[in-house]
Structure formats: C-alpha cells, structure tokens
C-alpha cells in the first residue's frame, strides 16, 4: 500500500503564482482524474511533483508514504516510486531506446536486470503496445510521431512499475486506435491494485477507457470541485465555463 499526499502545494514559475494550495491524496488501487481547462495549472502540478527545475515550490508538501518528495532530487523521486508520463517527451539524440530503458530499469530497481529477462520484458511490453521491434534501436523519441511518443511513455510505465503514476495529458494528440492501445496499457498497470494513478486530462474521452474512482476539477491553480465518475459526465455536458468564471 502506498499513498501520495499533496498538502497545500503552492508553486510559482518565475515569480508568477500558478498553484494556490492544492490538496489531494492518491492511494494504491485508486485512479484519480484531474480535469480542467487549459492554463488551470494541471501540468504545473505534474511537473512540480516530479521536480522540474523550472517550477519553484513556495509552500506545502508532497508526501509519498510519509516522506516528503520535495526534499529529493528528480531521480531520487523516481526511484522512490513516482512516475511522470510526459505530455511532450523530449527527443534525446544519440541515446537509444533500449539503452535508455535498461539504464532506467537498472536505476529504479537498484540492480541491472538480467539481459535475457530484460529483452523478454521489453519485447512483451512493446508487443502489447503495438510498438515495432525496430524502435528499440532508434534514438529516444527522435522522429517519433505523437502517438509513438505516448506509447513509449506507457511502455516505460509498465517496465518501471512505480507506486504512483502521474499521467500528464497522455491522451492528447492520440487517435482512437492509439488511445485504446495506450488505455489498455494503463489498465494493465493498475490491474494489480498496488499502484495509484493520477490522470491529468483535458477531455473526458480517455475516461471511457480508463475508469476513474475520483474526479477533481482544477481551475485557477487549485481543486475547485471533486466527486466520483459522474462528475466527468457533468463536465462533458456542461464544459468548464462555470469553473473558469468562478476562479477568474
């Protein structure tokens, strides 16, 4: 059992306040959807938790099983069991996918995986996400289509098996087929019931494939409403307008 507890988190970017006191708790076995309009601070929440240097924490705590992640470096947070699937994964020239994945798995597990087992895990993971085998030899994210990048993020999720996964608009830019493949990957990951998922999205579409237990509406840098899956349906029908007005 793991718990990610975000307490009164306040974050600024270049002296501009973005998050104004976020409170949220994600436990193993739970899937939380964070929904909100563009510019509401959803991605800031994701990157601040992961420790991106651009974001300055001005208050609050982010506890993973009681330990404050904010005291840790980016890589220490990942090794502690946090994973961030990025909305725009960067291209890293000269670093092959297989080399990158092996380095990441080695770092997170604390020891190098046996080569044969790793090759098998990688092949199975890639097959399940309909990723071509030749991908392993390509440079990290270089020349990948939007859909390929997102599938590759989910491949990492499945290989690294974090305690808590934050998925930042993983559904954006995907066609229906790709969305289905990616959603199946997320569902495989959460099937064990031992992991928590914080799914950030602008649209309700992905929630038809990845059913959330809780839905939080984000506006103006904080959670303005929470509920069950029915809240997503309400948003689908009514949009974000009432929240953007309220927070403005």
């Amino acid at each position, binding site marked *: 059992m793991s718990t990610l507890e975000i307490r009164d988190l306040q974050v600024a970017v270049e002296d501009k306040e973005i998050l104004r006191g976020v409170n949220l708790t994600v436990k193993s076995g739970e899937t939380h959807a964070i929904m909100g309009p563009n510019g509401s601070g959803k991605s800031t929440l994701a990157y601040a938790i992961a420790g991106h*240097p651009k974001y300055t924490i001005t208050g609050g705590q982010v506890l993973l099983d009681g330990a404050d992640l904010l005291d840790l470096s980016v890589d220490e947070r990942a090794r502690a069991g946090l994973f961030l699937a990025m909305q725009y994964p*960067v291209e890293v020239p000269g670093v092959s996918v297989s080399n990158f994945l092996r380095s*990441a798995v080695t770092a997170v597990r604390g020891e190098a995986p046996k080569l044969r087992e790793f090759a098998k895990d990688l092949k199975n993971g890639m097959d399940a996400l309909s990723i071509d085998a030749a991908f392993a030899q390509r440079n990290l994210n270089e020349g990948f289509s939007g859909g390929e990048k997102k599938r590759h993020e989910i491949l990492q999720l499945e290989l690294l098996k974090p305690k808590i996964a934050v998925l930042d608009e993983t559904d954006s830019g995907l066609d229906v087929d790709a969305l289905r493949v990616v959603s199946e990957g997320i569902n495989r990951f959460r099937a064990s019931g031992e992991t928590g998922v914080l799914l950030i999205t602008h649209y309700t579409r992905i929630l038809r494939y990845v059913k959330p237990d809780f839905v939080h509406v984000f506006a103006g840098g904080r959670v303005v409403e929470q509920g069950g899956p029915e809240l997503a349906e309400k948003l689908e029908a009514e949009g974000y307008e009432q929240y953007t007005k309220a927070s403005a």
Partner: protein
Amino acid sequence: MGLNEKPLSTLHEKASYELADFEVPTGREEAWRFTPLSRLKGLHNGKAEPVGGVRVDIDAAPEVTVETVGRDDPRVGTSFVPTDRVSAQAWNSFEKATVITVGRETVTSRPTVLTLTGSAGEGAVYGHIVVKVEPLAEATVVLDHKGSGVYADNIEFVVGDGANLKVVSLQDWDDDAVHVSHHHAQLAKDATFRSFVVTLGGDLVRLSPSVTYTAPGGDADMSGVYFVDAGQHLEHRLLVDHSQPHCKSNVDYRGALQGQDAHAVWIGDVIIRVEAEGTDTYELNRNLILTDGARADSVPNLEILTGEVAGAGHASASGRLDDEHIFYLQARGIPHDEARRLVVRGFLGQLIEKIQIEEVRERVLGALEAELSR
C-alpha cells in the same frame, strides 16, 4: 582577378615552401586569431630549435612498404605547398621523412599503426610523413600521438586513382604537449578518403586537415571528435578545395567541453571553384558545453564560385547540455551524472561508432568515459 583565375580562400592567401614568405604571426591574422601564440613554444616564430624527441614506432601491415628517407626523396612534398608559417617551418626543419607505400591494387590485411611518442625536453620536433596509396589499393592507417613535447609536422596522404585510404589520427597527448599538424590529402580520380580525428590530450593542439582533388570522382569524408578539459586549447581547421568536377566531401566534427578556459576552435572552409561543377559537399560542427567557463568558436565558410553544384551546405551549433534532456532521464530514476554521461556519450558516440577498427573504437569510447568521470 577574374573568376576564371583560381582565387585562394581568404584564409589561405599564401602558399610557399619558403619560411621567409610567411611573416611571424601576431595573432591579429584571421588564421591565427583564435590560437594563443604564447603557448606555441616558439613553433610560429622560429624560436623552437629542432631537437629529437618524438619516437616513431611502426606496426605495418605485411603488404605495405615502410621507408625512412631524406629530404631529397622525390616522393616527399609532392601533394601540398605549406599555407601557414608553422607548416612551412615544419617543412623546412624536418630531417627524415617516413614514407609508407601501398602498392598498386594491394589490399592490406590489417591497419598500419604509427605510434608517435613524444618526450619532454627543450626545443621542438619537426616531422614529415607520406602515405602513398597507389591506384586501386586499399589501406587503413592509424596515427597514434602520445607523450609530451612540442611537435609540428606535415602529413601527406596521396590517394591514387580508385584507391581507398582510411585514416584515424588520435591526439592522446599528455597535458603539457603542444602539437601543430597539417594533414594534406590529395585525391586522384575516383579516390576515396576517410579520415577520423580524435583529439583528447595536449595543452594546445592545432590540427589542419585539408583535401585537394586532382581529378573528378574523389570522395572525402572527414569526421572528428574532441573533448576539451579545463585550460586546453584544441583547434581543428578544415579546408576542402573543390577544384575538380563531380567530387564529394562531407565533414562532421563534434566536441564536448568542460572546465575553466576549455577552448575549442573549429574552422571549416570549403571552396567550390568555377570548374568544380557537380560538387556535393556538407560540413557540420557541433559543440556541447558542459560547464561554465568553457568556450567554443565555430566558423564554417563556404565559398561557391560555380552555379552548378549538386549540394552544398553547412551547419554549426554550439549549445549547453539541455536541461530538458537531463530532466527526462532523471525523471526515469537515472542519477544526474549518469544522465549527463548518457547524453554526451550519445552526442559523440554516434560519430565514434563510425570508427571501423574495433580496438581503436573501444579505446576512444574508454577515453570518453574517463573524461566524463573527471
């Protein structure tokens, strides 16, 4: 001067075997403005007295002929005319030249390795090497520079009709070495030349690889990797002179820099003369700056004097290690130092993989690892 006369590049205004034809550089000249003359130990002003001190050990492929010859040997000095003061100084000061000959249609069974080992001492050493690959022959030559000292040389690569020469030049000097070197490749009809330069050591290294063509169909590919540490000055000056139609050239040099006053200089000159129709050329230089205090100067020059080129381009980019790359790798649990290593290894490794001699490739990768662990 009309366009039909051969104009010389602005960087190579003068060519002569006479030392007196070259004035002592002051540092204001375009060709010398990046080089710290005070660290040349007199190579540029005649004050570096010739003494012995660089041992040349040759492990030759059985098919090649190795000779040590005097200055008057007709095979010496056929392929080039010095275009700067230090090249002319080396030309006028060497006593014995090494001539390596690969006979017509000979395909060598293994690389020929020249190990040049310098020993510290007063004065300088001037050298001269000729590698002559006769028509349709194929050979690989490795130049391995190590040790200490002050060394200037000219190396001629004379590649005959349809011949193929691969060269790897390692500048793996001790920290205090000074090395000014000129590589002159001359390509005959349909000749292929592959050069790979790796510069890691030395206080000051200034290496000027040049290519000339004597007939159509020549193909030159020149790659280079350098890693500059604090206080080092590593300079590479390339010149490709397209004076014949339908020849190719490709230049790809990449370097990483770290530490206070680490200084890399890359000059890439390509001239496409009026008669060089159908030329296909590209040159690229990239620098990755890993720390504050390091500096990279990168100057590509492309002079096109004909309207009929197949392709001509250049690119130069110097940038810092990308925070977003490091963040992405760290976000997957990879510690900062290792993330940095992965990125730099990736940046230079793509080129290093082009070295076809496994032993040399492994050594260069090993040296890169050592640099990154500093």
